[in-house]
């Protein structure tokens, strides 16, 4: 199938306006007849479900958590970008667009990103109207702060809990629609399969996580807002339940998977400290505004620090290597995430790492405290410092924090066109679940922007362009054979997992997969490692289906079964990521191939051969997927080597 990104013609600035002016709409009377399924209640899902409900569609919304408010968007700390230019520091829609494209290492679609920058301002207006308590100046006007990858202050924030406040805003809007009866909520319900009828997405099969019953749901269109798949690494900043299963179900049904290898490794996380560890805690990127990152200049000093013979505060200023400031004078500690993460890895690999494992660098606030006073630092980062202290039992006001990169976000996801529709007609993917706007690396405070842009302002328009042709389609009976067949597939998968009845827990396999992914498909990748990873994952998958043990039965509340189904999908997704990473013989953004770097260790893109989106088509279990290429054309931006040095 030829990939059609459906990018509207005309000048970049006019595309979205023109699209909306000419798209098909659905009349109010017809909206009432059309049913839409939304899976996931994070920023994208909740905002989409609420907005579609407001418009008058009949919406069903699903989440695996006990409440829509728990979706992992809630954990986003730092902020949300918008091109408001309130601080008058030279920001504009174009600059936000430009920074996002450049930050994504020229691997995102221009038209999508420009649209994102355009609607960014509406998001802030909307959220303020909903009562999101953004930080304010004494004047009463909104405050901004700066974030990685930008030279302007365009990030709006609500202490260190911006994601929470934005999600609660969307959750409020969703709750309102539930109250009005426009949206029906299904909490503790997980999607297990997609129903495709005559080539169009027409419904889903779900499992009621409390009773274990499988249920069938019809929709004229299905929207996946199911987040990213960072948990393929086992240890990540994602929530324990975050998974890639809905995307994999869609992929197996014919939706192409876009750029699966683009993974964001976040530079400022609390380092790993033991095998029992279940997740990694992110410390907001905003900390890099005032914190300075360093390791000792001398390997022996590093050794002493690792053994605890020396305290970091004992290391003299001239013996410290502020390596980001040294390497990237223009952006310093505020370089994009991929750059900061790789630089930390480079130092640690070279033997300068600190902490008991040697896999940590310092993030030091002593200068900032001297300059601004403890009170200001407390106001800005108090809750983050407190969180750090609770976890590590160290006081970051007195001793530098220790940080190390961790998997955080997946730029890859289901391939979607300009309308956010996947290659299955009627199936949409929004938010982190799609691949669209961040290219090979996402800038800080852009995930919240994208999730809400998709949900509030883009999907509610573009979905009508499809549904306008569906007004004569009646609500299908879920007794149809396609529903029965999809349910049978889901049931067989569950039965197959119980049939294994092996000896090892789901988590033990997940951890092993995580190690393979981190070692070979992590921050730095190479041909040999990736080839090995593919073999290892295949072998592990085989072992999984022979030796996994899931206690209990399918017809009860059974978290082990939930995990088992998700890990089964991760075992396929991990391989797909490695395949994509192996095929992309260049370094770009979060994808760093050791074979392709500049002499001073920067990512070396190959625009001649790889300026495209890799969209993978499923060809069957244990079959190699098929690559489709969507070429990227840059008309409004000059493609350059990313430079954060000057």
């Amino acid at each position: 199938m030829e990939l059609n990104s459906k990018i509207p013609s005309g000048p970049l600035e006019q595309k979205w306006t023109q699209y909306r002016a000419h798209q098909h709409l659905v009349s109010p009377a017809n909206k009432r007849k059309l049913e839409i399924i939304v899976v996931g209640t994070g920023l994208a899902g909740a905002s989409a479900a609420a907005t579609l409900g407001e418009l008058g569609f009949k919406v069903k919304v699903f989440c695996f958590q006990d409440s829509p408010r728990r979706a992992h968007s809630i954990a986003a700390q730092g902020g949300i970008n918008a091109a408001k230019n309130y601080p008058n520091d030279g920001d504009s829609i174009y600059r936000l667009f430009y920074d996002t494209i450049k930050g994504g290492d020229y691997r995102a679609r221009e038209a999508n990103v420009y649209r994102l920058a355009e609607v960014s301002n509406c998001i802030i207006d909307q959220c303020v109207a909903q009562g999101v308590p953004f930080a304010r100046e004494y004047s009463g006007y909104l405050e901004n702060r700066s974030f990685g990858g930008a030279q302007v202050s365009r990030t709006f924030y609500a202490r260190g809990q911006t994601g929470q406040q934005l999600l609660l805003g969307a959750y409020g809007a969703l709750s309102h629609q539930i109250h009005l009866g426009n949206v029906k909520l299904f909490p503790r319900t997980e999607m297990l399969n997609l129903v495709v009828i005559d080539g169009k997405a027409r419904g889903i099969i779900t499992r009621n996580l409390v009773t274990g019953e499988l249920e069938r749901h019809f929709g004229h269109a299905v929207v996946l807002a199911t987040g990213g798949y960072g948990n393929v690494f086992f240890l990540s900043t994602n929530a324990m339940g975050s998974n890639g299963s809905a995307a994999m179900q869609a992929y197996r049904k014919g939706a192409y998977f876009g750029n699966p290898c683009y993974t964001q490794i976040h530079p400022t996380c609390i380092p790993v400290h033991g095998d029992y560890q279940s997740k990694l805690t992110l410390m907001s990127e905003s900390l890099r505004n005032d914190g300075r990152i360093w390791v000792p200049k001398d390997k022996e000093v590093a050794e002493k620090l690792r053994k605890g013979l020396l305290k970091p505060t004992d290391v003299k200023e001239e013996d410290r290597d502020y390596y980001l400031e040294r390497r990237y004078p223009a952006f310093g500690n505020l370089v994009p995430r991929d750059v900061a993460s790789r630089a930390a890895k480079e130092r640690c690999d070279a033997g300068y790492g600190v902490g008991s494992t040697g896999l940590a660098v310092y993030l030091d606030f002593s200068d900032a405290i001297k300059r601004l006073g403890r009170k200001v630092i407390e106001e800005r980062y108090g809750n983050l410092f407190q969180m750090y202290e609770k976890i590590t039992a160290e006081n970051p006001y007195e001793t530098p924090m220790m940080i190390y990169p961790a998997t955080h976000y997946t730029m890859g996801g289901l391939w979607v066109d300009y309308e956010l529709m996947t290659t299955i007609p009627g199936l949409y993917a929004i938010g982190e679940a799609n691949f669209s706007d961040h290219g090979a690396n996402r800038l800080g405070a852009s995930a919240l922007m994208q999730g809400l842009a998709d949900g509030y302002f883009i999907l509610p328009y573009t979905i009508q362009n499809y549904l306008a042709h569906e007004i004569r389609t009646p609500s299908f009976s879920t007794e149809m054979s396609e529903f029965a067949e999809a349910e049978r597939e889901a049931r067989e998968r569950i039965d197959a997992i119980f049939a294994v009845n092996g000896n090892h827990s789901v988590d033990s396999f997940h951890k092993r997969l995580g190690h393979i992914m981190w070692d070979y498909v992590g921050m730095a990748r190479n041909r040999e490692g990736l080839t090995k990873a593919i073999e290892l994952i295949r072998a592990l998958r085989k072992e999984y289906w022979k030796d996994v043990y899931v206690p209990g039965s399918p017809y009860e509340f059974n978290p082990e079964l939930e995990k088992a189904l998700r890990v089964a999908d991760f075992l396929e997704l991990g391989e797909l990521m490695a395949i994509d990473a192996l095929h992309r013989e260049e370094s770009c953004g979060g994808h760093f191939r050791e074979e392709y770097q500049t002499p001073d260790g920067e990512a070396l893109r190959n625009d001649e051969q790889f300026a495209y989106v890799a969209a993978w088509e499923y060809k069957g279990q244990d079959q190699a997927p098929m690559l489709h290429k969507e070429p990227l054309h840059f008309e409004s931006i000059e493609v350059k080597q990313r430079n954060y040095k000057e």
Partner: protein
Amino acid sequence: MDFTLKIWRQENAKAKGRFETYHVTNISPDCSFLEMLDQLNEQLIQQKQMPICFDHDCREGICGMCSLYINGRPHGNDTGVTTCQLHMRRFKDGETIWIEPWRAKAFPVIRDLVVDRSAFDKIIQAGGYISVSTGGVPDANAIPIPKEKAELAMDAAQCIGCGACVAACKNASAMLFVAAKVSHLALLPQGQVEAKRRVKAMVAKMDELGFGNCTNTGACEAECPKEIKITNIARMNREFYKASLT
């Protein structure tokens, strides 16, 4: 570190529950309470037993999914944390730890330590929002809001809906949860328009769902992982009088 655990086990909502005793050994003091339970579950799976069900998700103290009434305190013996942020270094080696689910009529047990908190969603659905539709709103800077007000609103808005307030309250009252949302929105000019309708609807829903009454005991405030203050309850009371009596 070694611990003896007394954990509430209950197969489903209708089953009769009981306490079971478990032992865990060699637990790192740096490990979180939930990671300790993970290790116990790994043991149980090895023995082909059903692991202990408990709610959890983000494991960084913000999703509000984790619960657990540990040795007589929701989220355990630390202040301003959720169970996922509680570390084993807070316990004594060899200690016996009692783990119970949230207990409230409005929070029925689903399985083991997992309870149904959808009552909170229902309270929010009754009016815990500003009924603004997408689009057609003024510029974000059109209404300046005094910083102090915005900060107070944020203090209240931090609620993660975990239910520790209900669990801690001797009356299983949801006043702090409801007050946090009422306060957050009542403090902002955007929220004023619907303030009266909102507080009446939310309080009525809270009463209907079988939560207890507030006796100003302050256990909620003491156990709230986000340290939300009972001044918000006083504010809600004011809002309620304003709405009902004027």
